[in-house]
């Protein structure tokens, strides 16, 4: 299953609901294009909802890092929401859990933006 995304606005924050696989190829490209498109339109408070992301590889991890740094470099913030156990474990192994702001409650995640 390839990756699908849908975005919605909640109190000035863009929530990107992702589903499927973030892997080398289409999945990574979809994520990259989505975040760049949001930033180009001035949406700089971004939450990636990964509740339905069941698989991610090293390229996908790299794409999450890229999304994080690109957003930060443009004065924005990008947070992760609802990690599955697999994705959570990968972020722990790679120590990226210490880099990302990871949330497990959407309302709290939205309110956490400055």
């Amino acid at each position: 299953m390839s990756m699908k995304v849908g975005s919605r606005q909640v109190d000035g924050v863009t929530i990107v609901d992702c589903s499927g696989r973030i892997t080398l190829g289409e999945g990574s490209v979809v994520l990259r294009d989505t975040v760049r498109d949001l930033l180009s339109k001035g949406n700089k408070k971004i939450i990636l909802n990964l509740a339905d992301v069941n698989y991610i590889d090293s390229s996908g991890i790299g794409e999450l890092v890229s999304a994080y740094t690109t957003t930060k470099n443009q004065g924005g913030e990008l947070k992760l929401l609802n990690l599955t156990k697999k994705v959570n474990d990968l972020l722990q192994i790679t120590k990226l859990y210490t880099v990302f702001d990871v949330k497990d409650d959407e309302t709290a995640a939205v309110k956490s933006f400055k």
Partner: protein
Amino acid sequence: MAMTEQRVSYTLDSSLETIDSAEEKATRIATELGFTEDEVMQISMAVREGAVNAVLHGNAYAPDKKVTLAFEHKGGDLVITICDQGKGMDLNRIPNPLAPENLLKTSGRGIFLMRSFMDVVEIRPTQTGTELKLIKHVHGPTAGGKEASQ
């Protein structure tokens, strides 16, 4: 083909489809050998990362270069070999992805993940490219003896 003390190998193109195919084959064979769900995920992800290295960094998508993928059930271990026809890599030049200065790099985690998930990871140059060997010890009581279809 019975995987008990046997070997199955594939010759694959240097394409994105090969990466998905390698992962699917690893998932199927590891499942049929009785590995746990977590172990199957680890094996399939390690094989995917190995295939990515072979297709992208080894063969660089060259249509005239092939990737060979072999699974062997040997002495209670699952031994996976992935060979490419590329220039090879210098492991000493791969930075530690856990170092603070590397945490925000967008690549360089593939070999680290393979080492995290497999019991043995060996990389060596061959006359025609690079050989990656991944070994997972069989821990489960049900491992072995099942049939792996192609």
